């Protein structure tokens, strides 16, 4: 069996499962963000009054924080009340939290072999060898009430990443290159398991970025098997080491295998209005921009901010550009302060926001107007995603976004640093 098949079999109490099979499986963690208040309403519609297991639920406020208006403040209060009533201890308000695709892992709630359900980009946690998948608001209500949920066992697409990436080629570029290759529905209903030596050359953060982007190919989840880097992640976070975890068998059956040569890969850029509308950075150089965004759940970890800081250090953001930097969590924010990155950003003329989905989801903290053209390290550039439907968003890695912010047009970090 493949990794994801084993995880599902373990949770369904079965010795064997096959792709296409429908199973009812135990859920280890239900994640709710503040826009998932609908799940709480649905929980009540089920006639449920008590959650199945309060330790298997985590609430992370990230979309409308700090509360953007009176209505959202009210939603935050509703969710806090729910957590109190239900004895849910893992509730993370902004000051000790951040974005839901970083905070639970940082706090030791995600361990290899688990099933985690959430909104859409929870597949990010697949980097820790879990089946982390987006389900509907109603599904989460059912999982909170019963501890179980139905799943279709997905086929697995095995993606082999070969070679050492060039300087300024990150997990973002690999993810975009994959989207370029397979398209926005290239992995619909499938799991994508990443293997290959490229993973050894990249920081752990690149795996989170890569798994995050599998959602844009329609995947059920992206995963990476446990290795030394996974173990090191837990050590670095001051968490207990994972003890037992499944991995794909040597004779596992993959629905498809494909290989990406990363050695020759150039930085990639996704043009409006789809994350799979990808081309090499070189083909789009010089396009004027008005806004630049670095961070969020896709590229808001310490190595991502480090890349941006390397490009921005001692340089100044173009007066025509608003550069906004959003660390993925308060923990990342604190470490970025300690390492001096935040100072570099402020000196360069950037604004630094608290960790929030705000601008990435077009909600608040930097929404785009009709004429605005942005380059962003986020994961979606659908029409209207970051604001007005006529605004345009290009997706790229943190070094490219930083370089573009300095030049006021889409630029290569190599040009800026030389």
């Amino acid at each position, binding site marked *: 069996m493949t990794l994801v098949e084993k995880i599902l079999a373990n949770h369904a109490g079965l010795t064997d499962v096959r792709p296409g099979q*429908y199973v009812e499986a135990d859920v280890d963690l239900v994640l709710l963000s503040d*826009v*998932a*208040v*609908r799940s709480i309403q*649905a929980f009540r*519609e*089920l*006639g*449920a*009054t*008590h959650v*199945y297991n309060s330790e298997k639920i985590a609430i992370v406020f990230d979309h*409308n924080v700090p509360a953007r208006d009176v*209505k*959202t403040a009210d*939603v935050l209060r509703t969710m806090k009340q729910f957590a109190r009533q239900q004895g849910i201890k893992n509730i993370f308000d902004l000051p000790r939290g951040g974005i839901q695709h970083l905070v639970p892992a940082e706090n030791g709630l995600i361990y290899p072999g688990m099933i985690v359900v*959430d*909104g*859409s980009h929870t597949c990010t946690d697949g980097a820790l060898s879990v089946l982390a998948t*987006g*389900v*509907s*608001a*109603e*599904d989460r*209500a*059912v999982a909170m*009430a*019963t501890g179980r949920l*139905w799943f279709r066992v997905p086929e697995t697409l095995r993606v082999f990443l070969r070679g050492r990436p060039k300087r300024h080629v990150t997990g973002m570029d690999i993810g975009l290159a994959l989207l370029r290759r397979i398209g*926005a*529905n290239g992995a*619909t*209903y499938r799991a994508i398991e990443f293997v290959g030596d490229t993973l050894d050359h990249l920081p752990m953060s690149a795996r989170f970025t890569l798994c995050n982007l599998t959602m844009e190919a*329609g995947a*059920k989840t992206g995963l990476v098997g446990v290795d030394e880097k996974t173990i090191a992640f837990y050590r670095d976070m001051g968490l207990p080491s994972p003890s037992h975890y499944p991995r794909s068998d040597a004779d596992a059956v993959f629905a498809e295998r494909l290989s990406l040569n990363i050695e020759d890969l150039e930085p990639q850029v996704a043009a409006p209005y*789809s994350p799979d509308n990808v081309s090499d950075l070189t083909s789009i150089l010089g396009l004027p921009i008005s806004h630049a965004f670095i961070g969020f759940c896709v590229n808001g970890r310490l190595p991502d901010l480090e890349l941006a800081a390397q490009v921005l250090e001692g340089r100044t953001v173009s007066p025509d550009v608003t550069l906004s930097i959003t660390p993925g969590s308060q923990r990342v924010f604190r470490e970025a302060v300690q390492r001096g990155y935040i100072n570099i950003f402020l000196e360069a003329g950037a604004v630094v926001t608290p960790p929030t989905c705000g601008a990435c*989801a*077009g*909600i608040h903290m930097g*929404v785009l107007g009709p004429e605005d053209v942005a380059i962003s390290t986020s994961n*979606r550039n*659908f*029409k*209207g*995603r970051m604001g007005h*439907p006529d605004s345009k968003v290009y997706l790229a890695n943190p070094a490219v976004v930083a370089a573009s912010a300095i030049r006021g047009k889409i630029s290569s970090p190599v040009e800026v640093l030389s």
Partner: protein
Amino acid sequence: MILKGRVWRIGDHVDTDQILPAGYINLKNRRERAAHCFETIIPHFASSVEPGDFVVAGINFGCGSSRPSVEILQDLQLGGVVARSFARIFFRGGIARGFPLIICPELSEEDLPQGHRIEIDTGKGTVLDVTAGNSYASEKYPPFLNQIINEGGLMEVTYRRLNESIAKAHEEGTNCLQCSE
């Protein structure tokens, strides 16, 4: 089940930002919220849609976030969605809420055009274009999902299961999970 309605034709990869822009997710007034449905691609949709109408889409309908997209379409009393394929979170939402999602892989862009009347037979697995007189095959659901659908969706199934377990626990005097201590 026989479903009848009028077609609203849209394209491939219609994402959840088009079903409802993110800024309106937390509107408590559901009618107010639904008024923004599809506003970026069909500005007059919410004001012109009639109960029982169908959205007919291409591939990957509903891709994007897990916002309550299905609920919004139900708030507009849409009859269902016919698409060549659905994105999975949206599809799960349909199963949860018992909302008709008809998978019709053979549709081309020209099939089932705007304004045509259609008749869907979920038992037979057909979508009939009444206006043009053409018929298309739709996929039948696997038995596992069919059972959930026939019982009104996962929410309904769970509601009943919970009630039964509460009743049973009370009858037998065992610990009831849903009662306060």
